[in-house]
């Protein structure tokens, strides 16, 4: 064996030793380090997500009072129960502001309702149930169409996108105008253009099981544990619908 061969063998042996050390000790540790690095990255992402959630929750807490006020206002537009007396009161006040007689109100489907409206009477929305009504008003053409404007004006959306709630949300499904027979004179012509307006409209109420405020109080929602939350209120705070009519 020449010197050259001996050196080659020794070099190979040294290389083998170094490779052995690499594969048995260094490489596993480096792999472990990379795994831990990945764990750190995952943990950081989780932390960022949690912080985002916490920030959203803090924002929600900051918005709570305005959201509470909004829901109370929306309770006028869509109350948790039918609130028919309040609707009658509102309609009566609306007609008093014009020369219109509020003749009748009927709940349920009317015989003059359109097929489309009848087909959807029993349907329920995701959060609201439909409540059909038929109103009969007597008045002049101008007063009646202005009254329609007033009825739909109880809940409107402004050009800025804001909802303006001043009473029940009503969707008018059909309108029939005909001469007022009771006002007809002997000649058979209606007196001074008096008309009978039959209006079928749909009001909305919260679906069964839904409450207006979900048990929330002005200071905190149900289930919130805050130092300032009042503990004297009962949990079943189903806020009554407040209908404010502005004649």
């Amino acid at each position: 064996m020449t010197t050259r061969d001996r050196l080659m063998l020794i070099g190979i042996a040294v290389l083998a030793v170094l490779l052995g050390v690499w594969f048995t000790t260094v490489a596993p540790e480096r792999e472990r380090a990379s795994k831990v690095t990945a764990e750190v990255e995952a943990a950081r992402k989780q932390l960022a997500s949690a912080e985002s959630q916490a920030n959203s929750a803090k924002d929600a807490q900051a918005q709570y009072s305005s959201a509470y006020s909004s829901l109370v206002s929306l309770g006028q537009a869509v109350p948790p129960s039918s609130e028919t007396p309040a609707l009658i009161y509102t309609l009566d006040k609306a007609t008093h502001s014009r020369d219109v007689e509020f003749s009748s109100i009927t709940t349920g489907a009317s015989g003059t309702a359109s097929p489309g409206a009848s087909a959807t009477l029993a349907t329920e929305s995701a959060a609201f149930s439909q409540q059909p009504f038929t109103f009969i008003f007597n008045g002049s053409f101008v007063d009646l169409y202005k009254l329609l404007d007033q009825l739909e004006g109880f809940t409107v959306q402004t050009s800025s996108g804001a909802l303006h709630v001043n009473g029940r949300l009503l969707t008018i499904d059909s309108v029939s105008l005909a001469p007022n027979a009771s006002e007809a004179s002997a000649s058979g012509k209606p007196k001074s253009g008096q008309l009978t307006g039959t209006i079928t409209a749909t009001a909305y109420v919260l679906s069964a099981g839904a409450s207006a405020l979900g048990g929330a109080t002005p200071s905190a929602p149900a289930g919130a544990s805050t130092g300032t939350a009042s503990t004297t209120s009962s949990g079943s705070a189903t806020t009554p619908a407040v209908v404010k009519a502005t004649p």
Partner: protein
Amino acid sequence: MKAVNLIPGEQRQGAGGLASLAGRSGGGALIVLGLLAGLAALVAMYGSAHRSVSSQTGEVTAITAETSAVQASAGRLTPYTDFVTMADQRTQTVAQLVQARFDWSHALHELGRVLPAGTSLSAMHGTVGPTAEASTTTTATAGAPTSSTPPGSTPVFTLTGCAKSQTVVAQALQRLRLMDGASEVQLQSSTKSDTGSGGVSGGCPANDPAFTTQVTFTGLPSAPATSAPTSGSTTTASVHSAGATEPVSTASGASR
């Protein structure tokens, strides 16, 4: 005079090749040095990896603890998030129902504006009926607010009245097309009676044609897309009550 090496090349010492590199130790020193250098490098790499593992394991522990604390903090505020989300959803639902309405007052105002002189209406019946497309849409979007006048519904006015002559009836048909939103005006009948019905219920005078026409309006527009309610997001729409103004959720467009 130039010096010449007379020793044969293969017998020369230290003149190149492995043997010359090995030197007097026969290369042992070189190999030991290489081994030591390699081991040193491996130890350095191992130490670096080990230090990284140690420090990052501690970091993971700290981050996990911090995450738990933050999650607990967010969890305590979950009722607020849920409440604001509910308010957003309800506001958007009401906004969509408002946007899905037909402006009856404006349509009747238009009707009164366009009817020509020499015509009178004895009856008017207006309905908002869903089209086939609207019905499909209504059933397809389960969970969406169901309006009694869903988007795509077509308002239709059926007008019955009297005119001074058939020419005036034609003029009335032309004028009805000028109504804002009217898409089609269709005459159903225009009948002149020699005697005239003359009675109640909108009878026309003798020789005045009684007409019935149908005005079809364009379908109600679909509600504009609104962003999904996200708690804590900046919101633009508001709910105004009697004297109260509270920002709540996103909605756009003016509608009655």
